């Protein structure tokens, strides 16, 4: 396999006065899948497009396989992109779409078609070669787009929100297929999404972006369990952010006081004084309030979302979002509940 690593060094992209991507630096190791994730407008798609060579950076350099590719056009890079809209050529059959890449790179018609046929078989589309894109389902179109990108055996394969046009059930299957394919072929993949679940599920590494900057990057579980920043805690874990006080620090452990409760956490370099605590919704436990409970609140909303019940609880420390396993609400709207914190879901953030 000719998978290659990618490196961005201080890359900036402006549209007029707007800085879409602001001094971004990161590496993607060969043969790994890295997700660029963030809210819309965070610059993730622009980053991907610069990697594809569809937009030039205003500053910084882009390296593919250790070589400076900043000045190379899209046609000169060994990079393929699966578009959000799939961008299938509507006037070409499935086979012609997939054979397009090899054909414009000088392969004979017959060889290009044969290559396309093999690739289509690889993504499970054998037998649909003669169809037009408009005659395929959304999932099939997606796989044609994938085959068209794969047929060139690119050094780097890019996905721009590949699942956004699929329905929820299909989404999980396709995302598993993509991950499976990437690992089987040892591809280097950059994957853009705004969906945190998708990012956590498929990636070797996750890069979280906001307003053109990289906020944090790391392994998915690491970022989910121990985010450094409030933004990532909120974005990946939907965490509640609470003002807290660090009462003491010893041997890298901090005693944190929050809303009348006290827990011991990894200090992560924080010192005594005020601090911010991120609490994942599943780390907050609820019980019917009793006399003498230190931290109580009132249930504002309760909603079943399948395997969880989601509560909004009004407390002295603000409105908290709590998710408890189970299908049925244990606490009625308007009832008073006592809140307690589980250490695994609490983390000190900047």
């Amino acid at each position, binding site marked *: 396999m000719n998978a290659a690593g990618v490196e961005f060094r201080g890359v900036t992209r402006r549209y007029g006065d707007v800085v879409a991507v602001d001094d971004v630096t990161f590496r993607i190791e060969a043969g790994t899948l890295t997700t660029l994730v963030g809210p819309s407008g965070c610059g993730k798609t622009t980053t991907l497009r610069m990697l594809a060579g569809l937009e030039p950076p205003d500053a910084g350099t882009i390296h593919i396989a250790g070589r400076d590719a900043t000045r190379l056009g*899209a*046609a000169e890079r060994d990079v393929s*992109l699966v*578009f959000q*809209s799939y*961008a299938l050529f509507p006037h070409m059959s499935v086979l012609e779409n997939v054979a397009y890449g090899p054909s*414009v790179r000088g392969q004979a018609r017959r060889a290009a078609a044969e290559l396309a046929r093999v690739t289509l078989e690889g993504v499970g589309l054998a037998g649909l070669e003669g169809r037009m894109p*408009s*005659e395929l389902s959304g999932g099939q179109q997606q796989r044609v787009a994938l085959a068209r990108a794969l047929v060139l055996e690119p050094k780097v394969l890019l996905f721009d929100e590949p699942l956004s*046009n699929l329905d929820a059930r299909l989404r999980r299957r396709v995302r598993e297929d993509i991950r499976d394919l990437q690992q089987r072929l040892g591809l280097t993949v950059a994957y853009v999404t705004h969906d945190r679940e998708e990012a956590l599920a498929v990636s070797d590494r996750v890069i979280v972006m906001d307003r053109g900057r990289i906020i944090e990057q790391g392994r998915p579980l690491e970022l989910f369990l121990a985010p450094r920043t409030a933004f990532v805690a909120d974005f990946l874990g939907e965490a509640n952010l609470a003002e807290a006080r660090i009462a003491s620090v010893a041997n890298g452990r901090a005693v944190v006081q929050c809303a009348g409760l006290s827990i011991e956490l990894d200090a992560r370099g924080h010192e005594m004084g005020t601090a911010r605590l991120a609490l994942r919704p599943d780390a907050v436990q609820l019980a019917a309030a009793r006399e003498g409970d230190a931290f109580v609140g009132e249930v504002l909303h309760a909603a079943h979302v399948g395997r969880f019940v989601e509560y909004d609880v009004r407390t002295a420390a603000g409105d908290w979002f709590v998710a408890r396993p189970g299908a049925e609400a244990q606490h009625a709207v308007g009832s008073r509940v006592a809140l307690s914190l589980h250490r695994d879901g609490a983390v000190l953030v900047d």
Partner: protein
Amino acid sequence: MLQLGTALFSLCLAAEACLRLGWWRGERFALYLLLACAALVLVFVFFPVSTLLVSAVLDEHGTLAAAEFWRRLSAERTWSLACLAGRGACGAAWNTLSLALLTASGTTLLGLVFALLVTRAKLPGRRALRLLTVLPIITPPFVIGLALILLFGRSGAVNAMLESAFGITPTRWIYGLPGVVLAQLLAYTPVAFLVLIGVVEGVSPTLEEASRTLHASERQTFARVSLPLMTPGIANAFLVGFIESIADFGNPLLLGANFNVLATEIYFAIVGAQYDQGKAAALAIVLLAIALAAFALQRLVVGRGSFVTLTGKGDAGVPRAMVRGARVTCLAIALPWTALTVAVYAMALFGGFVEIWGRDHSFTLRHYAKAFSLEWTVNGLLWSGAAWSSFWNTLAFAAVAAPLSAAIGLACAWLIERGRFAGRRVFEFLTLVSFAVPGTVLGIAYVLAFNTPPIELTGTAAIIVLSFVFRNLPVGVRGGVAALAQIDRSLEEASLTLGARVATGLRRVLLPLLRPALVAALVYGFVRSVTTVSAIIFLVSGETEVATTYIIGRAVNGDYGVASAYSAVLILMMVLAVLLIQWLVGERRLGRRAMVITGGAG
């Protein structure tokens, strides 16, 4: 030739310098295309028009003469309001304006009536109506004037009938404003219809259904939802009618009599005994100013806000059917008008088979023979008909101009829609400006600009072909821009990431998808080249005479038989040419289900 070489060389030098400086990083193809298009548009649109403007302020010795310019510009003959006071004729500028306002209002109204009927009243024969609207587009506009003379002229068919049946003495009412308005209404209503049918169809039925579910009556729904949504389109149709009217030359020439308009005044200033370039230029400036003012006004009224309701989302719902009252009113307008149109065309097409109109209505092939006879001699086939040379000229000029015009137009459209360069708006304006320049003005501008070195083209075939190409350029540009806006940029990007060069992507991805736009540009380019009079009446010479100038020459001399016969042949030739173009370019193949070209599920 040397100059051309130098110009090309410096162009390439500039392009390479740009690439070196890092502008247009690597997009050599696009850069060269832009420089080539910009150079062409500058030389063949901007240069002649500015030459015209300059020549109006110079006297015959070529020195600046402001007073002279003012005298020409404010001439009594142009601006007189005498007719309001009942003392003689009004100035050509006022005539032009009032004619254009009447024609534009009339064509818009009629066009809307037909558009509503076709889309919303379940009429039998809607297809036939569509066909009827195509016919006028392939008809030289002055043919209508010709037919009106045959119908309502001094010895016209209707007048002859009225005289013999009721003893009504024919009058000359057709000569003057009424006749010109009638001819223009007949000629340009189909154009308004084509603009408005898109507009009426563009109003999303769901919005009307929403209005109905909110308890609005049909009438309220139409007045408060549908009509406001159509406003930009209606303004557009009005503008098109207005521009066509002020640019029309043939009908005022044939029917105008003492009703002078700017287009004919310009013609007489140049062609008549007076040969006064300065006067022609000054009149052309007045005409140009009116045209540009119309554009500016339309922009102001409509604004840049787009009311397009085609979102690409599958809109369910069916268009509202018309209520009975509206339907009856529309039919009451449309049916007589359709009858009149049919009569006029019948007259235009069959007038050539009649001996002498008004006097001897016996069948004859004499006029066809005079124009299109062939003889077999010892030297082979002899094209002995009088019309052959102008016919072949027309065919050749249009056949060369149409592909050029379409190619340059689509290239400009691509640069405007996909390019990211400073001055894109200016470039767009320059490519579209010749749409606002009435044909007569462009003709005069070409005469003035290409009469002397560095580019000396007077009397050649090249100047005619060039005037066709650049006069019709906006059609290709607008069609191309509209088509490209429907094609998602990601298709070209996909082609790029798959390793295809820009030019390859254009050829293999974009061009097949642009086929409908290409066909439209070719057809319009060809048809407009064949039918135009105003732009080229100054440019033709004895050797480069074309069909329209020949026909109008016959008609002005009262030789209606030959004029009519030739018109019929011309129309037939264009029908064949349009079919040929469609067959050559073919259709685009997108599978069984039609889909919006977003490149995917969307």
